[in-house]
């Protein structure tokens, strides 16, 4: 099989200046398990574009670093 990498607009935006290195709250609560930490920066980001725009990540973030947008295809 031959694969190509395509760019997609992902719904979750993390304000890195507000994201705490030791925190994992959003990653723990996401039902789809699509958020991870960037090992280099220690900041959270959306790794997989599989989102139910349900908002636990945003509500549980202690610093309001997360913004969930409605996924582009539905917006």
């Amino acid at each position, binding site marked *: *099989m*031959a*694969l190509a990498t395509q760019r997609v607009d992902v719904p979750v935006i993390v304000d890195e200046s507000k994201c705490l290195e030791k925190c994992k709250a959003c990653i*723990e*609560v*996401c*039902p*789809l*398990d699509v958020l991870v930490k960037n090992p280099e920066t220690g900041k959270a980001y959306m*790794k*997989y574009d*599989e*989102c*139910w*725009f*349900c*908002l*636990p990540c945003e*509500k*549980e973030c202690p610093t309001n670093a997360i913004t*969930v*947008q*409605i*996924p582009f*295809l*539905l*917006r």
Partner: protein
Amino acid sequence: MNTQHLQTDFLVIGGGTAGTMAGIKAKQANPDADVLILEKANIRRSGAIAMGMDGVNTAVIPGNSTPEQYVREITIANDGVLEQKNVYQTGRWGFEVIQELESWGVKFQKDHEGNYDLKQVHRVGKYVLPMPEGKDLKKILARQVKRHKVRVTNRVMATRVMVKDGRAIGAVGFDVRKGDFVVIQAKAVVLCTGACGRLGLPASGYLYGTYENPTNAGDGYSMAYHAGAELTNIECFQINPLIKDYNGPACAYVASPFGAYTANAEGNRFISCDYWSGQMMLETWKELNSGKGPVHLKMYHLDDDTISEIERVLWANERPSRERFHEGRGEDYRTDGVEMNISEIGLCSGHSASGVWVNDKAETTVPGLYAAGDMASVPHNYMIGAFVSGRLSGINAMDYVEGLEHVEPDPEFLATEKARIYAPLDRPDGVPHTQVEYKLRRYVNDYLQPPKSPTKMDIGLAAFERYHETLDLMGAQDPHELMRCMEVHFIRDCAEMAARASLYRKESRWGLYHYRLDYPEKNNEEWFCHANLKKSETGEMEMFKRPVSPYMVEVNLQQEVYDVAVR
């Protein structure tokens, strides 16, 4: 790849609404027993009620209604084909569930005198109890799980129930982050994995833009099938009237008690009752195809204060992101109707009637295997029904496990299942799950979306059977992708069940849910029965009829036809 071996008395698969309650009730019944919840996500925020709920849809509260009245209402709404004693349980135990939830800190709406403030949304009775402050429901449940010392393993996805000598003896799965193979021996197992919410493809084309929480991909339907359990009335699809594109409830259950209603493009009513039923969906479908569409939830005739109150509920609970959806499109309920559409199909007994066959003790047809919540066939069961069936499974399983020993799993079974699960990792350059799933679900739309045509369903069925080969092309690059791959396996199984069951029942019933173009009428003489399916001894999917048990609450279906059309 590491293997983890676990043992428990009672294994709960899926820690959502029904699952958390099953665990808690089992521990209350026997505090010495070991109870383990296995959850693909994290029970703090998983499943349909991840962000709480804005109301109870099936509350039978003394002084307002009786379990018998509730059974009547659902019997008529579900065209008579149901096991009344199962539905009765929801009416019988729902009030206790509500009181217990309240004692844990869940808030339900009360009137000025402190009585539950019930609303009428159903055709006859008042069963809707608003929960304007319901957003933390799941957090409260998770706290009670901990308090009751139920063990929890998050981020492990079950893939198969283990069965030996005709009895459920545990389950297998894998850790969706680390990739470990997980084998759990249990004396009894309950499946509470929710609906099959990823069957049809949403019109938006976004795989996860579903009504149901997309983690619920029909896992339990497929696992029950492979365990040898019977499933029932799978052709009674879940189809909902939803906000177009957003695919969430509009939500008439919240807004109609305030005076909102579903209207056509001219602003007129075309249904007399906003309660979701197959017949209501058929009227919606007809209206959309009559030139009078699109249909919308109409609130713009209400005053500003009323709309603000509706918004307060809708923006905080259940699907709170709808606020930003409307905002992004510049829509305001004061001036705009909420454009609605007919959803893609799914399987769910919480909303319709498609599920795993259970009795009034939440037992499936496999000893030691229980099913609860949306995936168990108790029609129109919704959230309180999920709690009640979870409760029944927990209490009854504790009786069942008394004196039982653990059984050693079959090594051959484990080896085969392990090979099936991990195969996509051996093909990192295989076709990505997103493409494999997209095509499968597009076929579901093409061939199974009602109205149902026999030729189309035949073509669909052949495509789903061939799809086994496509699954073998799928590749995964990490355990997370592996989880999605295994979900596609489940979705394929559900698609095949949906096609076979729909072809089997040669009549139309449940309005749009099972509207066949070649048999457009209801045929009570031949089809006033359940259509069940199971895996035969030789591994084939076989269909058969099951009689409807004699009613415990008398209903004259000749006179009491569910009809909400405005003529």
